[in-house]
């Protein structure tokens, strides 16, 4: 039976490197997806994920086991991501286009993987880009709530704990964020389904 996150943290506290590796393997993809959906930048997300794991390792000694490891981890990830976005806004740099990761990676995947054809891969890549772009246009706080609720499956109450804000605020951000997504993805979601064949 796999040890729980809290148990692993107790072992990391004592300097167990293997426990840290297990924790990293357990959370690497989920954490990457959260950060990537918030920042919209592949390389930045990889760096930020590494930074989050570094912080976890460094903070392990001061970690108080209260059964809310995931809340603590998401909080670190969200804070790192939001800080990065703020820095980026100050530097006035635009997020990298999906083409840097999406299209190139999609073609490579298509060449390596024989199951979906290149057209399907490109179509999927376009869809990913539409969703990523729509998400990226949302205000940070709305995007964070949507990512945590929709993609991570956290309950509204858990999101309120992660963000340390009232439940009503979380629901309101979710509502406004989804309304904006609805307006932006309208033509892909249902209006264009017939024409795009989606």
């Amino acid at each position, binding site marked *: 039976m796999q040890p729980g996150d809290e148990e692993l943290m107790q072992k990391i506290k004592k300097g167990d*490197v293997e426990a840290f590796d297990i924790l990293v393997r357990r959370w690497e993809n989920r954490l*990457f997806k959260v950060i990537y959906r918030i920042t919209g930048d592949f390389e930045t997300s990889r760096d930020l994920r590494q930074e989050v794991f*570094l912080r976890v390792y460094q903070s392990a000694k001061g970690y108080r086991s209260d059964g809310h490891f995931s809340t603590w981890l998401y909080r670190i990830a969200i804070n790192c991501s939001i800080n990065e976005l703020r820095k980026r806004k100050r530097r006035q740099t635009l997020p990298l286009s999906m083409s840097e990761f999406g299209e190139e990676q999609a073609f490579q995947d298509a060449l390596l993987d024989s199951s979906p054809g290149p057209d399907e891969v490109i179509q999927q890549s376009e869809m990913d880009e539409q969703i990523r772009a729509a998400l990226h246009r949302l205000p940070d706080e709305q995007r964070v709530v949507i990512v945590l609720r*929709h*993609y991570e499956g956290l309950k*509204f109450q858990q999101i309120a704990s992660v963000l340390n804000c009232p439940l009503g605020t979380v*629901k309101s951000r979710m509502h406004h964020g*989804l309304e904006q997504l609805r307006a932006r993805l309208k033509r892909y*979601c249902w209006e264009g389904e017939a024409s795009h064949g989606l």
Partner: protein
Amino acid sequence: MDCKQARALIIESLYDELASESAPQLQEHLDHCGDCLKYKAEMQATVEYLDRAVDKDVPVDLAALHEAIDRRRHRLLKFLRRRWPVWVTVGACALMLCMFALFVSEIQYKDGALTISFNGQKTDSLEERTSRILAAYREDQLQFQAQLTDELRSSVTAISQAINEYESQRDEQIAAAFQQMQVRQYQMLAAIREDLENLALQTDDRFKVSYLTTMAAMADLANSQ
């Protein structure tokens, strides 16, 4: 329920977080409101479309991560090594300050002169110092209390004595005044009695003279007749 409330609940229902007591109200609203029904369908489609985004697994390079951890761990040591003259100076200053704080028992500035006293005694712990200060404070309080009690007692005694003296003096004065008054009354009574006696004597004499005169006049009158 209005459309604004209903739309907020629609979002909750899409994520299975709608409270059971709100579900019938929402359904009732949707049965009568075409706009909200359309809104729900569009939101449902949006949420489903969001699900179409494909998640790519991007594994962590564990070796790079451990390297980064080691780098960060050693960064402080490197910094300390690179700046060792500064740190040695800072450490020496801190040590001197600690020694100074340990061995200086008293610093006093009085009449324009700074006096620093040293002693080799071990510095008391905070707890010991606190208990000592508390004991001294309690002793001061007890002394002050005893002093106050003594002063109060002596002042009460003095007041009682003064009252007693005043009362005895007043009694003596009253007694003397009463005595004098009595003497004066006796004297007045004696004078009155004497006057009365004199008056009675005078009255007797006058009566006798007038009686004799009257009798002589009557005798003269009888003789003349």
